[in-house]
């Protein structure tokens, strides 16, 4: 059973139809790359998965459970949406770290708030122990990102690449089933994209289930198990990276890829 099943997603913003019937599935441990021109709907799709946008039609399933069904209002209750969001993690193009907290606190904040709720009826000692666990885990994550020496720094003191790596640690701290990346390197200077891509590659090697929207074609080709090319709100073509990048079947795919290889 696929860990993520997306069925027939439609989304308009007013008059504009941004998603026109998107369906795909993702197996656990696989990395899915979504490529396409700006305006193709890739970001909107990702935002729908993370419940930042509400599809007008379609179904989203995780591990077989229907998380969202446009036709079933009982799947759209505000209280439940919050818990459903925890199935996914999202790393934003502009990082969006919390500026008033240290790097360490950025990573631990959400876990601490969740734990506080869950341990509401237990004593202070239990809470303190849980917080210590959270902090240790956060330090481990930041160490994996190569940022252990920056735990007490504030976001404005870090480079873009460092901030994005903190953002990845922050998303991982909640153990999401599916980690999503929305053009993680598009806001970075070219010298800084490497360090972030290295981290994502590392996650892929550890079989983290991921959906990555990216413009880095070489990276997508290298790291993804499956690639989707979107254009104008529909999936034009999908397949294994070796097939799609070398032998695109559709004309639109060919045109898109040629634009990228010629500008590279």
């Amino acid at each position, binding site marked *: 059973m696929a860990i993520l099943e997306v069925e027939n997603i439609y989304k308009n913003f007013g008059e504009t139809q941004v998603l026109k019937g998107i369906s795909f599935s993702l197996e656990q441990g696989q990395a899915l790359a979504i490529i396409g021109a700006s305006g193709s709907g890739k970001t909107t799709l990702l935002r729908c998965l993370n419940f930042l946008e509400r599809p007008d039609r379609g179904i989203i399933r995780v591990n077989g459970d229907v998380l969202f069904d446009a036709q079933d209002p009982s799947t759209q209750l505000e209280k439940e949406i919050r818990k459903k969001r925890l199935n996914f993690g999202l790393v*934003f193009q502009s990082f969006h*770290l919390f*500026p*008033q907290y240290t790097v360490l606190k950025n990573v631990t904040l959400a876990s601490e708030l*969740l734990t506080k709720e869950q341990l509401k009826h237990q004593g202070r000692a239990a809470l303190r122990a849980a917080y210590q666990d959270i902090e240790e885990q956060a330090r481990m994550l930041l160490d994996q990102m190569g940022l252990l020496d920056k735990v007490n720094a504030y976001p404005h003191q870090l480079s873009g690449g460092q901030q994005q790596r903190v953002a990845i640690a922050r998303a991982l701290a909640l153990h999401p089933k599916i980690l999503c990346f929305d053009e993680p390197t598009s806001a970075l200077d070219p010298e800084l994209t490497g360090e972030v891509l290295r981290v994502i590659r590392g996650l892929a090697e550890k079989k983290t289930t991921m959906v990555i929207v990216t413009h880095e074609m070489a990276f997508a080709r290298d790291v993804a198990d499956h690639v989707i090319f979107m254009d104008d709100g529909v999936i034009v073509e999908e397949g294994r990276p070796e097939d799609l990048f070398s032998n695109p079947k559709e004309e639109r795919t060919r045109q898109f890829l040629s634009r990228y290889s010629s500008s590279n």
Partner: protein
Amino acid sequence: MSNFSTIMARLLEAFRLNGQLFILTLVFALPLGLIIAFGSMSRWKPLSLLTRTVVWIIRGTPLMLQIIVIFFAPGLLGWGSPWGAGASGRFSAATVAFVINYACYFSEIYRGGIQGVPKGQTEAGQVLGMTKSQIFFKVTLLQVVKRILPAMSNEIITLVKDTSLARIISNKEIIMMAHEYTAKGLIWPLFFTGVFFLVFVGALTLLFNALEKKLDYFRC
């Protein structure tokens, strides 16, 4: 020179009224402003429209006028004056006018601050499973405070001096008192009145500078 100390004592006594009005206005207008801000930002159109209209009227008409209206209107409209004839009633009326007026000004500053926080901050909180109130108190609030501190310090310093407007319904505040002494040929009470205001505003300026410095550990 007992004249000097008596007059100074009276000036200080009158300044106490300015001070009380200042503190009471802040105590009520600071929270009320937040409520009004949420009303202005409400997604329920009737509420936001009503709130914004009220804010527009209050900010668009002179505070002096509002003080007069609040004091005299109930009586003149035949509803019976809730203020009574004494000094405390006149003070209460002035306080009510000040609170409403400054709450509206504060609400616009709050609204600007809240809407100025990038949407990405809220969304980052959301995808991390935070509730709306957690996002507001743990993410948005401090960023808003840092942003609005300069504008708020401006408004609050203006409030210090605006308190003298209470004299329009015969509240015995310091400028009214100093003005009376000019009729007796004395100019120096006016000078000392200025000094009192300078010291008060100076202290507030130091306070706000310290607050801004405290929030300087991060950039947003």
